[in-house]
């Protein structure tokens, strides 16, 4: 099978439609793709571009209202669209496997992992239970699960997210499929866990000779895992090519736009602002004539691009590189790039926020008999342990960490939704960590506002946009006169670059990015002095996220606001923040200016985080550090250094037994580690750009 060069999967001129009450919705148009044995294909695109529909079509699992309108899907010479249910069943799960985004949803919570794994070979092959078990254990070992026997006997909820996804991948590989479909397999995972899974996926094709189709919205992940990449936009492929040719010279304006939207870990906000793609993805029935990307394209030429739908063209000299653009040869991206404006970084003002030894413990009552006997009926979750940092006017401070590190708890205490257990948070010199929001003065409430993470949750679906913003204005007493409130809402809508008639709209009529803009307008309505943004763009598509990020920073610049930016994405953080606070299990492990944190000396955890960030730049050389294990539970943290269980630079027992003290590197750059600073300083940087001796010192 492997020596022949016969393709595993060929999709030819595939058109897929959904049939709804509103009529036929063409989800995928004119889709062609060839997967050769052992090859990993990446499909990249924003939500709604049809990439998951393609995967579903390959699985022939379209749901009741979907159907393939024309074209064929040939898997090893058999046309999948013509097979009956019985024949499909023998292919699905044995020759083609699929791995979904949410690992917990893919595992049956009431069955042991062993049952679920053994089921695969038992269903497809005629083998004994013992043999099935043996193979299951072996495959778990292959996906690098440390103790396969224990995992076999566990229920899904007893495993961490990373282990669950590994188990799901193991399940997918058990039947030795020729084709593995991965639909955003790491989106639900933390970055350091993601790094391990990505490593695993990159090894799969080599080890099992399995062809893979990797669906993602993240160009960096595609770069790290795939051989060839297909860029989809609004239901069609706009560009395809090998990783090398596409990443080095993207030809389609959309691909190019995507690259300008993602903050690279090597750029920062003032030198090279992100260039968001204007507008938004057209709905399937709103697609324009000609090029679907036309209305959002900077190189749109009337009379050329809007005539008829056109075919993919092979880029001269590169047989594998095809692009759906009439003008790809004429466009000179270099010229466009040189026009990029640079922004002036704002003057950092006086100190507005002082976090001084702030602690937040949650009490957990254990009412079990054992706890009663031992007398330990109350335990504490130490969500925040002695946080120390400061923030100044006009400054952006990023709080970085994976889920469960206590960053959201800190936000809650700062906002007054919870009260701190110890220490102080001083805002303009006044202690606020022990005052609940309701007991704060209007002035204090007004000057501390928040932008929330989930765009679908941040606005009340029952009330109009205008009503929700006006409420904030009236609540803070900024204006009381009806007419003036209305005018102010209009000004705010202008500020966040939304049309004024959004005043009357309901949240469900807005897209995710638009909702997030309203969320920002609402936070800035009272002209706050500090705004906390809790992962404000992590749920948005890249092109939209770039626009929202830029907007947030523009407003911040204008209002001289202090921005506390909570995030797990180091490239965004590198891009927009002045100072960084790295948190792990409730502790601050490192803090300093962006340049300081991104260059040695690093805390080992910072080093691992940096290494885990997928970078969509093929030129960059990255040192790979994959952390072992998972985040320990906050109920039962390690005794010594919180990071000791996963640290790749552990120096000995001291790490397990003693909490390291803060080492001052320079001015406000602090590392909490037992390794002396001068040893840490000699560590080679994680990310290097060829031609530069040291990127971060340059």
């Amino acid at each position: 099978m492997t020596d022949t060069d016969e393709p595993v999967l060929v999709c030819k001129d595939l058109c897929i439609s959904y049939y709804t009450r509103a009529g036929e919705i063409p989800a995928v148009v004119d889709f062609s793709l060839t997967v050769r044995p052992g090859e990993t294909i990446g499909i990249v695109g924003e939500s709604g571009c049809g990439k998951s529909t393609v995967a579903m079509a390959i699985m022939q699992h379209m749901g009741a209202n979907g159907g393939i309108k024309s074209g064929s899907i040939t898997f090893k010479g058999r046309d999948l669209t013509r097979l009956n249910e019985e024949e499909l069943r023998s292919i699905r799960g044995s020759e083609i496997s699929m791995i979904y985004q949410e690992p917990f949803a893919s595992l049956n919570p009431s069955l042991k992992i062993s049952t679920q794994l053994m089921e695969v070979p038992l269903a497809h092959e005629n083998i004994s239970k013992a043999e099935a078990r043996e193979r299951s254990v072996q495959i778990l070992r292959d996906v690098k699960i440390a103790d396969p026997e224990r995992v076999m006997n566990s229920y899904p909820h007893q495993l961490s997210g990373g282990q669950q996804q590994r188990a799901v991948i193991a399940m997918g590989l058990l039947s030795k499929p020729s084709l593995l479909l991965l639909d955003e397999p790491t989106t639900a995972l933390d970055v350091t866990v993601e790094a391990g899974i990505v490593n695993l996926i990159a090894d799969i094709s080599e080890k099992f000779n399995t062809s893979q189709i990797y669906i993602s919205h993240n160009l960096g992940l595609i770069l790290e895992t795939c051989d060839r990449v297909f860029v989809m936009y609004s239901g069609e492929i706009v560009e395809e090519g090998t990783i090398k040719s596409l990443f080095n010279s993207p030809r389609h304006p959309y691909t190019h736009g995507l690259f300008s939207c993602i903050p690279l870990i090597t750029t920062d906000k003032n030198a090279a602002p992100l260039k968001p793609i204007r507008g938004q993805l057209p709905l399937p029935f709103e697609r324009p004539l000609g090029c679907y990307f036309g209305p959002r394209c900077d190189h749109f030429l009337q009379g050329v691009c809007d005539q008829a739908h056109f075919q993919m063209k092979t880029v001269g000299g590169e047989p594998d590189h095809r692009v759906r653009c009439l003008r790809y040869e004429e466009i000179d991206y270099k010229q466009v790039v040189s026009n990029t404006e640079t922004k002036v970084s704002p003057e950092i003002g006086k100190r507005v926020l002082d976090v001084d030894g702030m602690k937040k413990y949650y009490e957990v009552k254990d009412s079990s008999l054992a706890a009663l006997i031992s007398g330990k009926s109350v335990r504490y979750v130490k969500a925040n342990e002695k946080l120390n940092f400061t923030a100044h006017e006009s400054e952006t401070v990023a709080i970085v960490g994976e889920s469960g590190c206590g960053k959201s708890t800190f936000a809650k205490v700062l906002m007054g939704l919870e009260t701190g257990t110890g220490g102080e948070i001083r805002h303009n010199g006044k202690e606020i960590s022990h005052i609940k929001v309701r007991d704060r003065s209007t002035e204090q409430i007004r000057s501390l506002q928040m932008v929330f993470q989930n765009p679908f949750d941040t606005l009340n679906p029952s009330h109009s946009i205008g009503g929700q913003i006006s409420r904030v204005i009236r609540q803070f007493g900024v204006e009381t006169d009806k007419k003036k409130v209305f005018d102010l809402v209009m000004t705010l809508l202008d500020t966040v670059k939304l049309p004024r008639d959004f005043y009357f709209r309901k949240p469900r009529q807005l897209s995710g990015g638009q909702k997030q803009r309203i969320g920002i307008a609402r936070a800035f309505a009272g002209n706050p002095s500090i705004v906390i943004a809790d992962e404000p763009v992590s749920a948005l598509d890249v092109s939209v996220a770039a626009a929202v990020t830029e907007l947030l920073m523009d407003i911040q610049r204008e209002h001289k606001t202090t921005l506390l930016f909570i995030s797990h994405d180091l490239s965004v953080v590198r891009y927009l923040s002045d100072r960084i606070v790295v948190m792990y299990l409730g502790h601050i492990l490192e803090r300093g200016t962006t340049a300081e944190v991104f260059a040695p000396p690093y805390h080992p955890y910072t080093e691992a985080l940096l290494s885990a960030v997928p970078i969509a730049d093929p030129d960059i050389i990255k040192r790979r550090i994959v952390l072992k294990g998972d985040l320990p539970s906050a109920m039962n943290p390690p005794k010594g250094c919180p990071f000791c269980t996963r640290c790749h630079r552990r120096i000995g027992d001291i790490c397990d037994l003693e909490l390291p003290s803060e080492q001052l590197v320079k001015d406000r750059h602090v590392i909490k580690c037992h390794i002396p600073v001068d040893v840490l300083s000699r560590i080679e940087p994680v990310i290097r750009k060829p031609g530069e001796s040291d990127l971060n010192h340059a």
Partner: protein
Amino acid sequence: MSKMPSVGFAAGMWRVIKSIALLRESWVGMIGAFLVLFWILVAVFAPLITQFDPNASIQPYARPGTLSASGSIFWLGTDHLGRDILSRIVWGSRTVLFYAPLATLSAYTVGILMGLMAGYRGGLVDDILSRISDIILSFPVLVLYIIVIATIGASGFNIVIAITFASSPGIMRIVRGLVLDLRNRDYVAAALTRGESDWRIMLYEILPNARGPLIVDACLRLGYVIITIGVLGFLGLGLPPPDPDWGGMVNETRQMAIVFPYMTLFPCISISSLILGFNLLADGLREISLRD
């Protein structure tokens, strides 16, 4: 997305029209709406439909279709006291359609307030309210009605009180469950961080978003309340005679049901059709709410 009207009122009207248009797509819902609408029209136009005084004794034991002395026809016959059954059913619909929605509304007001408090405040408030509702729910409903009515006497408004007392714990449970989910939404946190009062958050931020399931439940519950009013009438705990009351009509004539089945049958059909109407309407609404 279709073009949206940009004015608040017009947008509201547009939504009402659209939801009625949506109901048209569910034939179950349409039948329900038709039955309910039919009874509402009957109740509204009662004086125009009927030719007899519902409480006047005219001609006992007249079969359906008998011609009366005044020249009008007893379409559904008369009962043992000589009262026109059609007139009594028509006027009786007014009683049902007045007290049933009133009782439901009252039960909802109490249930929603309790549910909001229990779900939003949690802790001790939740414990107390939940235990109270457990106690009330542990009684057989009928016993509860009998106890309440026997204590405060039989009258229209006491029926409302009895029904409120017996059904609000169930409503509280539903609301509490919905609130437990909704209170963790970011928009509630946003309201908290701008210092809104608890009541404003409960009534303005949370309650409107729980309306979907509550409207469907209210429709179903309206059906149960109609049964309850019928049952109370049947047990003699309903409206005091001689005012027409469907349940009471069944009760008064049940001993003659073998000889004069029409006396019992027609009030029974009326009760069933109205309940069926509300249930089908609830089904239709649920179908629509699941779709969008």
